């Protein structure tokens, strides 16, 4: 049996990588991809707990399904926004899109 | 019966008895399975290519390949294959090399992976996953990724356009496809391919074979339509429309890589036909004759294998037939058809199926009543729309 902490640490690594990507990538689509990575890290934790917790309730898996659904919705809206940005600014680099700047 | 699984079990047991670690027989079995599948795919695809050429020729009242190999040019595909293998493998200068090389592998790999859960005959299935049908559908969706990779990495506008169209088409048609498969899954109460086939062993009203195509005829038609689109077959071959896109996403590919695309396409045709056969047409079920000298199970298995192939190839034949019968759709028509026609119908089918399953025999009363009400409402609602169009009237 693989210890639970292995999965948790793996989820943590992937989540942290996602955080790093979301914080540093200039391309908006890359940021979206990083966010998907973060969600995946979380999902891994959910499913690991669903497997290792003593009751056979599978709440973890149910929540993972919800996370996947929300991720899909987020990707759709996010990409629509990215396309809108590209139409208006001709770029998808978020640090060049700074109309809100002082 | 000596099912495939029991055979493998026996092999493992024998290996374990000799003290060989578990990993070795696993690897051996894996290699054997993959080789068999690959061999089957190559042979079947070559046969299909030759068959398609002959069918198209006969539909157009000509002969098709007649020279290579003697009888009706049966070796034509082999010759073509050898040619493709020997050709120079070009990678365009502006292409993204890694992605370009990876693309055909992804497409081919995804197609091959789908063969794992095809139930060839009773007990003859590589791995009867309990989520078999979902596995097949999700694995097949990988093909689109490969196509997009191919189209984009070619750095060719026709290829990119073809890939974009293909992705849009595949993503759209995947939705009604999955929904149409849910009807039989709900009836059978399982997603395992083997159990789906077993669930069709009875008879409807004692006469018709217990195939799901009868109660789920709507779902079957939707599935078949979507399958055509998934395989990029006419009338849904927009991604590779020769007359407008040269050849679509694989225009820059040649030689071995092109052959992989080509093989994958025909292999994919077989996969969708196999799913249709399993889910709707009763899989390996069919009449069989007890051959003298053969145990009952073996005869059953042999006939099952034959029946499965017959049904699959019949569906493939229908696909080829359609190719030479129907005209290509326009992109907007194609998308509108998926979203506005197929999707609502498949949802309606799903709802009706669910109602019938939940309510049992009472369902006829409920469903009938509600259907009549709805039908009345729709008819009522639909009529004035036609009436109100008058010349000069502002709408």
């Amino acid at each position, binding site marked *: 049996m693989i210890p639970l902490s292995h999965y948790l640490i793996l989820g943590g690594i992937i989540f942290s990588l996602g*955080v790093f990507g*979301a*914080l*540093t990538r200039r391309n908006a689509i890359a*940021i979206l991809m990083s966010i998907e990575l973060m969600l995946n890290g979380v999902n891994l934790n959910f499913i690991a707990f669903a497997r290792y917790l003593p009751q056979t309730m599978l709440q973890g898996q149910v929540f993972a399904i919800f996370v996947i659904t929300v991720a899909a919705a987020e990707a759709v809206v996010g990409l629509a926004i990215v396309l809108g940005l590209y139409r208006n600014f001709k770029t998808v680099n*978020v*640090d060049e899109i*700074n*109309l*809100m*700047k*002082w | 019966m000596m099912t495939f699984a029991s055979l493998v079990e026996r092999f493992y047991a024998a290996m374990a008895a000799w003290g060989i670690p578990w990993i070795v027989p696993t690897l051996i079995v894996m290699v054997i399975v993959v080789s068999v599948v690959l061999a089957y795919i190559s042979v079947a695809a070559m046969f299909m290519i030759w068959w398609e050429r002959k069918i198209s020729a006969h539909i157009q009242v000509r002969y098709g390949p007649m020279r290579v190999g003697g009888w009706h040019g049966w070796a034509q595909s082999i010759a073509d294959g050898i040619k493709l293998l020997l050709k120079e493998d070009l990678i365009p200068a502006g292409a993204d090399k890694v992605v370009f090389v990876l693309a055909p592998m992804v497409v081919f790999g995804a197609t091959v992976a789908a063969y794992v859960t095809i139930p060839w005959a009773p007990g003859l299935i590589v791995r009867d996953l309990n989520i078999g049908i979902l596995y097949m559908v999700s694995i097949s969706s990988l093909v689109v990724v490969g196509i997009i990779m191919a189209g984009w990495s070619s750095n060719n506008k026709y290829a990119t356009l073809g890939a974009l169209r293909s992705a849009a088409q595949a993503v759209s048609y995947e939705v009604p496809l999955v929904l149409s498969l849910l009807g039989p899954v709900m009836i059978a109460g399982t997603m395992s391919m083997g159990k789906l086939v077993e669930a069709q062993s009875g008879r409807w009203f004692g006469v018709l074979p217990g195939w799901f195509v009868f109660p789920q005829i709507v779902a079957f038609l939707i599935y078949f339509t979507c399958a055509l689109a998934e395989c990029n077959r006419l009338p849904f071959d927009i991604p590779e429309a020769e007359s407008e896109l040269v050849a679509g996403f694989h225009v820059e590919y040649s030689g071995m890589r092109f052959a992989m695309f080509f093989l994958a396409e025909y292999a994919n045709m077989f996969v969708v036909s196999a799913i249709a056969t399993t889910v709707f047409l009763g899989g390996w079920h069919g009449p069989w004759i007890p051959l003298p000298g053969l145990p009952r199970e073996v005869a059953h298995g042999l006939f099952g294998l034959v029946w499965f192939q017959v049904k699959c190839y019949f569906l493939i034949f229908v696909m080829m037939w359609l190719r030479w019968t129907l005209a290509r759709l326009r992109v907007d028509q194609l998308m509108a058809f998926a979203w506005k026609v197929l999707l609502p119908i498949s949802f309606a089918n799903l709802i009706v199926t669910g109602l019938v399953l939940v309510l049992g025999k009472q369902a006829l009363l409920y469903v009938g*009543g*509600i259907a009549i*009400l*709805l039908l*009345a*409402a729709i008819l*009522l*609602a*639909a009529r*004035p*729309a036609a009436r109100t169009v008058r010349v000069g009237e502002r709408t």
Partner: protein
Amino acid sequence: MLKLIWLVPTLPLVGVVINGIFGRWVRERAHLLAVGTTGLSFLIALGIFLQVLTGRTLNWDVYSWVPVGDFHATVGFQVDPLSAVMMLVVTFVGFLIHVYSIGYMHGDPGYARFFTYMNLFMGSMLILVLANNYLFMFLGWEGVGLCSYLLIGFWYQKQSASDAGKKAFVVNRIGDAGFLLGVFLIWRTFGSLHYAEIFPQVAELHEILAQPSIFGLSLVTWMTLLLFTGAVGKSAQLPLYVWLPDAMEGPTPVSALIHAATMVTAGVYMVARSSALFDAAPVSMTVVATVGALTAVFAATIALVQNDIKRVVAYSTISQLGYMFLGAGVGAYASAIFHLATHAFFKALLFLGSGSVIHGLGGEQDIRKMGGLRKHMPITAYTFLLAALANAGIFPLAGFWSKDQILHAAIASGHVWLWALGAAGAFGTAFYMFRLYFVTFEGESRVDPHVAHHIHESPRVMAVPLMILAIFALGAGLFGTSPEHSPYYTFVNPVFRAAGEGAGHQGPSEFTMALVSVAIAAAGIALAYQMYLRRRELADRMAERFRGGYTLLLNKYWVDEIYNAVFVDFGKWLCHRLWLVDAKGVDGAVNGTSWLTVLASHLSARFDFRGVDGLVNAIADLIQGGSQAFKRLQTGVIQNYLLAMAMGIFVIVSLYFFF
């Protein structure tokens, strides 16, 4: 079969969804679905009723609707004789009125909208009737209130119609607030909202319930009084009845269905349903009976002199509802529900007949411009006559039995003055019903000559429901000829545990009572005949003679004006006073102050420009310089914010772990 109960309210709601969404396309065919669903619902209700007749009941929680902590309300249905009778009456009368509406609403631009609302009403009413707990009942309660509002204001282009809708809504709100408070109190006390869990507890919790609480009234009295407030609002009793006459602005089928046959009787149903609670609260019972009897007389007197055909019927409805509450208040719940059912038939018939007259006369509602209509519209006239007889309580029509039983119960319980009020109301009822009938259908025609030549009998789709209802107005009473032995009472009585016990047999015999009732009714009819058919001038002479009383009644005791004066104008007056105080006193003070301020500021300005400005500018420069530095923080680049967030999370998590 009983489990099909969910279909009964659901079917009309299906019609709502479809007609509501596709109304624009359905238009003139909306009735097919609306009438179809209602009819189907009626058929199922009939089937269920037959099952209930064999003694089967159902208390079925379909779905846990609001599970919050230990509070849980369900979507659940209760089928027992009481709700079965109500369900049958509602679906049957509702179905007939739907059919009638096909003819009545023909050609109306809001045809589909009308049927959508009607179906929504049917669904809500059936939920109200079939619910097995107070919260779900409240859903239906509010639903019918909403539909009432929508349908009264159906011709919203008319100012008076939309005002009437608003009035009904606001007045009902007062009652609903009481009802809701009552429900809260019930939950607080019993810890449940399910009938089946509350009523058995009443006996167990007797001490707690009987303890005097606020104002010395016991807990259960408060509970029932609050519930009764809701009933007063919904069933148009004193003093909240004012919305019902105005509700006649809606289309006539609406008046028949909602404001006569079904919705307004919801209060009676609710009181009967809560009979276990009311039985434990004698004070409330007295209140209910008194309010009912007073309303019965009060509304009857107003109806004596009204000239609008629909308003007469509307006041009659209020009066009859008063009888029902009188019955409930003296413990004769079964009789109250019986009167409810018979009243549903003949009052719906009266309304539909009025509608037929209005339809035939092209919208005329003033009875002074009618007369002699029997020759032109015989079906309407004869069915109307039957309904009027039933309403007046003539043997052996439906109204006779039920009203008589209520009056008998009143006297049997020892409340002679309640009986006296009821009997006076009965006399008035007979009089105004036949005044209405004679003036409208008999005598010489006073119809406007422009209208006269196209008076016509209503189409068959309207006439047939009239005839069916007439049969029931004639015969429905025969099911409940005696509170001991008749089929209706043996069917319904088991629901009311205490029923019959309170109604001892101290009073005069039933037979004597019946004779007295019929005599009173006959006297009323005879008087009307004398005054309005034989000697027309008598009526005017009477009006002349009792000018004061006549004006009082014609103006409906000025209740609307009093309410207007007390609640509306007083509010306005108060506001005006406050404004005056504001305008004179406060503004004067403010103006004086401002003048002073101007003077002072001129002086201080000099100081300001020199001393203060220098200081302020210095501070401003300082802040500007500082913000120049700080605005760098607000980069507009989303990832900077994200970074700040991530670091914040890191800090918080570290704090959590290491400290």
